[in-house]
């Protein structure tokens, strides 16, 4: 291989009074099958032990390692250096609060999101340990899982024009989450109740339709489909409410 890679990495440690936001350059010899996970760990272990970034599963499953890679949000563990030019610029995801360097606080953001959309099955059913499970059509189960696959990496939020403009926009991932419950027969919420949650500019009507979310989603979730499906459905609810008044 023999390429020498140049990494321009955003540095800032808000806990250190002397730290100022800046870009720092690191060089590394590229090796076979190198990913950004391998590269960043080598930089930390061999060149600067204070470099902050997030990895957990390092297998594209947990969603920890999203960052902006040469201008585009994506999962770092999933990104092979051979698919990138020899100059690689890494910056933290926007929208989320910065913890330090490439590390941001996605946990708090997503917790707020799922509390807002009440991301749990709403039902009066009391679990009976002696009863067998309620049957469900396998096709519906698979459909739910299709939307359940979001790993809360935050890439879509970071790529979203509206989310950058307004703090309260819940973004594609929230709508996708809610969509999962809309099709789940176990959830007894009505359309009107869903409308309460997302029928506003914070939700369904804030989207400017730029499609960036779906473009960057590492799980290839059908975010725009989901959005337009909900928008149609919620549109009907909105009309009904107008005529009731």
């Amino acid at each position, binding site marked *: 291989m023999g390429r020498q890679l140049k990494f321009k990495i955003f540095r800032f440690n808000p806990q250190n009074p002397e730290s100022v936001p800046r870009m720092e350059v690191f060089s590394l010899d590229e090796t076979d099958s190198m990913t950004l996970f391998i590269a960043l760990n080598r930089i930390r272990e061999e060149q600067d032990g204070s*470099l*902050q970034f997030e990895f957990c599963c390092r297998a594209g499953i947990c969603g920890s390692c999203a960052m902006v890679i040469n201008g585009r949000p994506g999962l770092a563990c999933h990104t092979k250096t051979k698919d990138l030019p020899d100059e690689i610029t890494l910056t933290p995801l926007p929208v989320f609060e910065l913890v330090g360097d490439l590390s941001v606080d996605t946990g708090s953001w997503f917790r707020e999101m*799922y509390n807002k959309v009440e991301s*749990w099955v709403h039902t009066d059913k009391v679990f009976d340990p002696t009863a067998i499970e309620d049957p469900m059509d*396998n096709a519906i189960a698979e459909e739910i899982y299709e939307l359940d696959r979001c790993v809360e990496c935050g890439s879509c939020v970071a790529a979203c024009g509206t989310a950058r403009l307004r703090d309260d926009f819940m973004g594609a991932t929230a709508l996708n989450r809610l969509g999962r419950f809309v099709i789940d027969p176990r959830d007894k919420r009505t359309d009107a109740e869903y409308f309460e949650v997302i029928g506003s500019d914070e939700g369904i009507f804030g989207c400017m339709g730029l499609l960036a979310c779906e473009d960057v989603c590492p799980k290839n979730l059908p975010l725009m489909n989901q959005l337009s499906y909900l928008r149609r459905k919620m549109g009907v609810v909105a009309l009904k409410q107008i005529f009731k008044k």
Partner: protein
Amino acid sequence: MQTIYKDVLIIGAGLAGERAAAEAAGAGLSAVCLSIVPARRSHSAAAMGGMQAALGNSVMGEGDNTDVHFADTVKGSDWGCDQEVARLFADTAPIEMRRLCDWGVPWNRVVPGKSKYFKGGKQFDKEEKEEKRGLITARNFGGTAKWRTCYVSDGTGHSVLYTMDNRCAQLGVEVHDKSEAIALIQDGKTCYGAIARSLRTGELIAYVAKATMVATGGFGKIYKASTNAVICDGGVHGAVLDTGVVPLGNMEAVQFHPTGIVPTDILVTEGCRGDGGTLLDVNEERFMHIYEPDKAELASRDVVARWMTHHMRLGKGVPSPYGEHLWLDIRHLGEKHITGKLREVYEICTSFLGVDPVTQLIPVRPTQHYSMGGVRTNKDGAAYGLKGLFSAGEAACWDMHGFNRLGGNSLAETVVAGGIVGAKIVEFLKDYECNIPTAEITKTAAKQQQRIDDMISGKNGNENVYKVREAMQNALDKGAHVFRTEEGLTECVETLQDVLRRARSVGLQTDGYGASPELSAALKIEGQVKLALCVAYGALQRRESRGSHNREDYPARNDRDWLTRTLAYWKNPDDDLPTLEYEDASPSFEMPPGDRGYGKMQIISADSKEES
């Protein structure tokens, strides 16, 4: 320093921790989970294959019941498990799967009618029954008599963990993520909580609680080649050893998974073999059926990993720049199956290897995967040695896995044990009051602050933590792997003792401000090396082969002398070896030790004790 008081402190927000938290919160107690990462990123999310419960809905699971599941589990453990616990587990698993169903897990369901499946590279037909339509279905996994593994496509852990975290949010369980526990608050008799370090600001925070639970998952990252997430590093196990009074059980029982991919050691699920994938050698020929005519690729993991290593030693491995490996072949399952039910496998192969599993072979080798050992508890999940301390999930040695865990039994264990231990904690707290010794809190926090200051100032030396860690990992990868010998283990122990000395003189190379990742690594390194020593020294002393513990110099399973569980204590902080004690593997034997039906080996019977 901030001090946070709760009824229950749970260290870990994976499935075991959150299941227990849900139980506590459901009973009206205040519960907080600590986690290094947001709860949903816990390693439980990475489990793809599924979880075992004897529901018997699928036609291939017909006739299954909790007795069969119990028997499979005991055989899987090579009779090393606590049979009372295995019984409790098998009986509770179906209830927990159904509970998860009510909470929102989109389990795959029975679809009536004919379909095809693969076994040993050959195609067979099955017909699912109309009366089971829509009930939770199951797939095949290694070491089980029936198809018993419930699944959600290949995102079981993800889906179940998201559902569990939803449930916790609904019940108001707090999860403090980016919080890393570094020491337990205890006085040698009772546990009062833990000191955690904020991974946002670097501050120390005291969490004080009447009951504390360790649910921090496995510690595979003490090995270099491991399928585990980078946070599965045994930090809290080190803190538990540090108490001097709580033992870790069966640390030598380390599972190696047959299909870690080469070179990155990412796991491709056992579901590949369960769904009919085969293992091939350098000549692209199957070999598992030679060694295991009955079960072939679907023998238990310890057995498959052993034969793979054996076969490579015969010169049948595929040479590569990263060492020898074998091939996993799933091509015959077809594109639809691979990109559907095995989609994560497809993604892992294409994105990390540049291999398309629909048309190409996947390079695999046995890789560290699961820690059967852990915080030793009784069947209620109460840790030995300290009142008020509990443990569950992979972190614990509860001990239903003995010397080898079956695929699909761990994820099931997390929710079953989380539920049972959670309920036991609720019971324990009913009329339990304790006097919180505030001096103990201050003392523990001050000691941790001192460690931090010393590391920053380089008072004890300036060993580089990453180099020390690498030395530890290399020693284990070399000496305490699939096959073990007196010589290899002795060398491993000696190397690790040297590494321990170095670990004690680690100093930071950077400033240690805020969430400093170097400081995080430095704070746990001594404990990690102690864990590694528990593994290697325990393995050196256990002169027999059982489950995943294979001594080439003692190839027989020796029930006469070793139907025991190792308890490893670190009695004095300055010791350079653990103190080992032993207890009976099981208080009672519902199923007396016998042949597993796979992995044929010599057995020295327990009865020969009386004879000799």
